[in-house]
Each structure stands twice: as structure tokens, then as C-alpha cells.
């Protein structure tokens, strides 16, 4: 086990990348702590699988270095890096039994036979596959197969990290949380560094201690689930995390005054003058609707009753603007939005700007 350092890492699939746009993964500098549970979150094609393949060694980055502990492993092949990887589709060796599948990585590494037997028996117990240990792996259900894929990584006690590439995609919804709980358990039990790639925010937020959000090849924010919710560093993080996502509308800011929809809102911080595109972002959870004309006028288009709360979808100056109201709240006919000023984020060219207190 080791801490993993990404040192000015970048990757392009072109042999001679010209500009920023040619990079599938833009420069990233980060240290994954030993024993941490990380999620790489982002939409398809954002570069998260590229990053994962660089860590596992299936891909050599165009630039930068990757270190396991103090050791530079940039040029190492996957088998030299001592990592495990679980793929989107379960990979099992059809002709082997469940136990043989689990023993395979150990047999390949010439671990003594009695040690293999002991570890495989332990792993079968941990994965609850006891009754299936001696049957052919072919014909098992997708979640059982995925457990085997995972188990093949875990039997190697000394792996530096376990990487997951959207491992629950093919699993039935009701089994997804079971497997995810199992993963958390195993993380606590074995303390491996785990890096989990997904485009599903629920998976990422429930699995990880820290979530790395990627967008168009760039890491836009790394933080705990709370940080991502409370203070998105990029408008994309705001949209992508939370349901519905953050409201982002163009506005103008002068000092500690925000101009929006013909109204002025006093902000708790002061901002230096901003050139270019300025937007304000606020989570729908921090928007209230008022009937007495206080706040900014909005026109309500639909109301979705989710049970414990209501999602009000509205338009503010022609742009979508949502509010989440508690169960039983009145929806005024002539509504205006009251925004909690302490929860407003100011975004300059999509990036969060922190004002002065």
C-alpha cells in the first residue's frame, strides 16, 4: 500500500498535441492518500477512464510522472505496479471454478499453495460465495461475477490500490447498494486505497471520502461530498451534483452588490471588478418562494411533488430556476424567489470566485 502522487500529469491521444483541446486529460497535480476512498466523477468522455488507466498502467501519460510512495512507476506495466482493477463488465475466467478464479492472481505470482488456499477460503467467506466456491464461474449472475472480479484484487493483500471502472453499471439496481455497502465494508476491513470511477453522483457521494469531479479533461474540484454541495468550485459541479442541480444565472456584481432581475441583493463578501462572464449560483434548497412580492419575480412552469419535498421548476428572466420547498408548502400564483445571500456563489468564466469578507 502506498500513497499515489500524480505529478504534473497530462495525457493526449494525439502524438503531437497542439493546444489544450488536444488533451484528453489536462494537467493534474494531486496526491491520493494511502488508504483513502476516492471517487472520480464526471460525464462520459470527461477523461476519468483515461486517468484511471494511467494509474493502473494500461496507458503511459504524455507528460508528467506518477509515483507510488517514493517510487516513479510512470513506465511500469500494470503487473509491475501491483494494483488491482475491476472493470465495467465483470471479467471472469469461464472455465475455472469460483475458487480457482480467486486463486488465479496468486498462482500467477507463485504464492505458496497453502497460503493461496487460506486466502481464497477467507475471501470466499468475505464475499458470501461459500455455496458456490466449487462451481464453474460461468453462469453466475452479474453481481456474483463482479464480486469475483473484485475478489481477485482483494486476495492480493499487498496491492497498492484497487481501481474501479464503473463497476456497478451492469448490476441490478437493488443489488447495487448491497455491493456498494460490501465495498465500504471491505475498505474498512482491508484499508486499501480505492479509486472509483463513476458518472453516478449517488455512487460517488456514498462511496468516497473525497470526490474528484472531472469535466472536459480537467479536474474541476476535489472535495468531500459536503464541500461539493456547499461550495461548488465550478458551475459544472453545481449542475452535476445535487438533484436538481444548482441554479446558475448571469448577473452583475459590483463590490458587495449583486444585480439580478432588476433587484439588488446584498452579499456577505466584496468582490473585485470582474471581466467576462459573471454568473451567480445558488442551490434550489436555499431558494424560498414568496407571495408578497419580496425577492425576484419568477414564473412557475411545473411543480414536482416528490413526497417529502416539492421541486418547483420556474423561469427567471427566461432562464430555468428551481426551488426545493418542504412538504406541504404553499405555491403562490404570483411568485417571487427569495435567495439566501450567504449561500450564493459568484462564478467568473464558470470558476468560483471567493470574495473578501
Amino acid at each position, binding site marked *: 500500500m502506498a500513497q499515489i502522487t500524480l505529478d504534473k500529469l497530462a495525457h493526449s491521444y494525439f502524438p503531437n498535441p497542439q493546444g489544450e483541446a488536444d488533451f484528453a486529460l489536462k494537467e493534474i497535480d494531486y496526491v491520493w492518500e494511502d488508504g483513502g476512498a476516492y471517487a472520480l466523477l464526471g460525464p462520459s468522455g470527461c477523461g476519468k477512464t483515461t486517468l484511471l488507466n494511467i494509474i*493502473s498502467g*494500461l496507458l503511459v501519460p504524455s507528460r508528467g510522472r506518477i509515483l507510488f510512495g517514493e517510487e516513479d512507476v510512470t513506465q511500469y*506495466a*500494470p*503487473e509491475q505496479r501491483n*494494483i*488491482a*482493477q475491476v*472493470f*465495467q*463488465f465483470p*471479467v471472469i*475466467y*469461464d*472455465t*475455472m471454478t469460483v475458487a480457482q478464479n480467486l486463486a*488465479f*492472481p496468486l498462482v*500467477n*505470482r507463485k504464492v505458496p499453495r497453502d497460503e493461496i488456499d487460506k486466502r481464497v477460503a477467507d475471501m470466499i467467506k468475505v464475499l458470501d460465495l461459500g455455496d458456490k466456491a466449487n462451481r464453474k464461474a460461468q453462469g453466475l449472475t452479474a453481481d456474483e461475477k463482479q464480486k469475483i*472480479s473484485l475478489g*481477485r*484484487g482483494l486476495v492480493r493483500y499487498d496491492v497498492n490500490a484497487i481501481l474501479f471502472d464503473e463497476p456497478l453499471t451492469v448490476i441490478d439496481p437493488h443489488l447495487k447498494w448491497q455491493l456498494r455497502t460490501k465495498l465500504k465494508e471491505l475498505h474498512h476491513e482491508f484499508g486499501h486505497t480505492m479509486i472509483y470511477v463513476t458518472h453516478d453522483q449517488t455512487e460517488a457521494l456514498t462511496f468516497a471520502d473525497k470526490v474528484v469531479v472531472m469535466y472536459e479533461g480537467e479536474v474541476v474540484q476535489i472535495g468531500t461530498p459536503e464541500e461539493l454541495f456547499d461550495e461548488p468550485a465550478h458551475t459544472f459541479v453545481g449542475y452535476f451534483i445535487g438533484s436538481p442541480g444548482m441554479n446558475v444565472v448571469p448577473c452583475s456584481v459590483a463590490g458587495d452588490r449583486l444585480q439580478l432581475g432588476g433587484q439588488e441583493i446584498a452579499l456577505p463578501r466584496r468582490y473585485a471588478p470582474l471581466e467576462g462572464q459573471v454568473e451567480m449560483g445558488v442551490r434550489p434548497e436555499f431558494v424560498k418562494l414568496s407571495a408578497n412580492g419580496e425577492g425576484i419575480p419568477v414564473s412557475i412552469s411545473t411543480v414536482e411533488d416528490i413526497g417529502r419535498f416539492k421541486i418547483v421548476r420556474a423561469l427567471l428572466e427566461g432562464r430555468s430556476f428551481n426551488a426545493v420547498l418542504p412538504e406541504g408548502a404553499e405555491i403562490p400564483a404570483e411568485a417571487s424567489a427569495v435567495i439566501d445571500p450567504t449561500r450564493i456563489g459568484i462564478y467568473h468564466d464558470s470558476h468560483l470566485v471567493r470574495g473578501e469578507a
Partner: protein
Amino acid sequence: MNKVQNNKAWFMVLPVLVIVALNAVVPLMTVVNYSVQDTFGNNVFFFEGTRWFSEVLASERFHGALGRQFSLTATILAIEIPLGVAIALAMPRSGFWASVCLVLMALPLLIPWNVVGAMWNIYALPDIGLLGYGLNWLGISYDYTQQPLAAWFTVILMDVWHWTSLVVLLAYAGLQSIDENYYRAAQIDGASRWAVFRYIQLPKMKHVLTIAILLRFMDSFMIYTEPFVLTGGGPGNSTTVLSIDLVKAALGEFNLGIASAMSIIYFLMTLLVCWLFYTITMQGEKS
């Protein structure tokens, strides 16, 4: 809902039944007919029961042809299947060269069988053929028209040249269906090249290889045109395999009874081997 039973639909199958009857069942029945009768001409037939069958089964000539047939087929399978798999493994998995390889591989399959026989007949001639002349020039005494071993070698080489491609194409198709992640996972599991072949590639190729073995078995078991054009079954009887012997009996000697009995035995053997092979492979699948 009531399912409507309409037996008139069976009439739709009638044309096919008629065609199959005319081109397969009726000729087969004539053979069955000849195999239990004898004739001295003038369309007069005498019932002979199982006489021809006992004669064929007891004849040394048939044993010889059968023995040669089995050794030819076994040799061909033993060479073509591993060689075909090896070539498929060595071929590039994608890109320009993959297409070039596929076209080159398909070429021998497009040549008519008698042309293949004629090509090799000339190619292997010791005085003017490139192969025959070349071998003799190297100091190896080679003349397929005189030496049984040379004839045998040429027949096998010709078949390997002609048909290994089929195994290659089938195995290649099997390999192409393997997801990239299997190789990645195996790499991460530290699997050796051999382990990748044994536990990933071979199991995934199992079905296409079953088909390849069946096709190559049937084709080589019924081989006629190429050895007939190349050696005509000679020198002596050394390359007279079942089909060549059968044609000699039926059309050369006009022994209709013997030839018919041979045909039926021959047919049943092919059927039996295919059935056994198929059943055994499919059984392995279930357990």
C-alpha cells in the same frame, strides 16, 4: 387468447420437402436399393440381403482405404487446427494489415478444388515444378509419382495450403469477439502468455473451433478432387482414400452392389463421428 391452429401452413413447407426428397432422399434410397441387390444387366435384379455389406466389411481393400483415410484426416486435423490457431493469434487485431492478412488468408479458399489439384500437380513435378525441382536440387530425393511417402506428403501439404485458412478465419473471428478488458484484467492478474491463451482465448474460441474441427473432419474425410487430380490415388494404392476407392469400385469396375454398400457405410461413419464429436463437446458445455 385462443391460439389459432392452422395446419394449412404446412403446405408452405411442401416445396422444400419436394426438393429435398428429389435431391437427397431419392438418390440415397437408390443407393440403399443397389446395396441389397445384384444384377447381371438388362435391369434384372436379385435380392442379396446383407451380402455386399459383409463383403465390404471383410475386404482388405476396404480396410486399407479406411486406414489411409483415417490417417490422412488425423494428420490434416493435427496440423491445420494448431497451425490455424497459431496464425490467427499472430495476425494483427485491427488496422490496415489486418485487412491485408484476411484477404491473403481467404485467397486459397476461393480456388476451385480441381484447380488446386492441377496447381500442385505441376508445382510438385520433380523435373519442372518449383517445389519438386527445388527439393531435388537441395539433394532430397522427391518424386510424388513414384514414391508413396512423397505422394502422401504432397497431398497433406496441398490440403494444409488449401484449408488452413478456413481454420484461421474461424479462429480469428473467435478471437475478435474477446473484449479488450479480458486482456487487461489478465495483465493485472499477472497472467503469463500461456495462461492468457489457456484461460481466455481458448475457451472463447471453443465454439468456432468445434465448427472448424467438424468442417475440416467432414471435408477431409470426403476428400476426392484434389488427390484425384494430383495422384489419382497412386502410386499404387498409397493415396487411395475412401472416396477414390469408392469411385474406382462404382465407375471403374462397375461393382454397383459393393460400391453402394461402401457408400452407406461411409455415410454412416461420417454421420457417427460428427454426432459423437458434437455430443461430447456439448456435454462439456452443460456440466
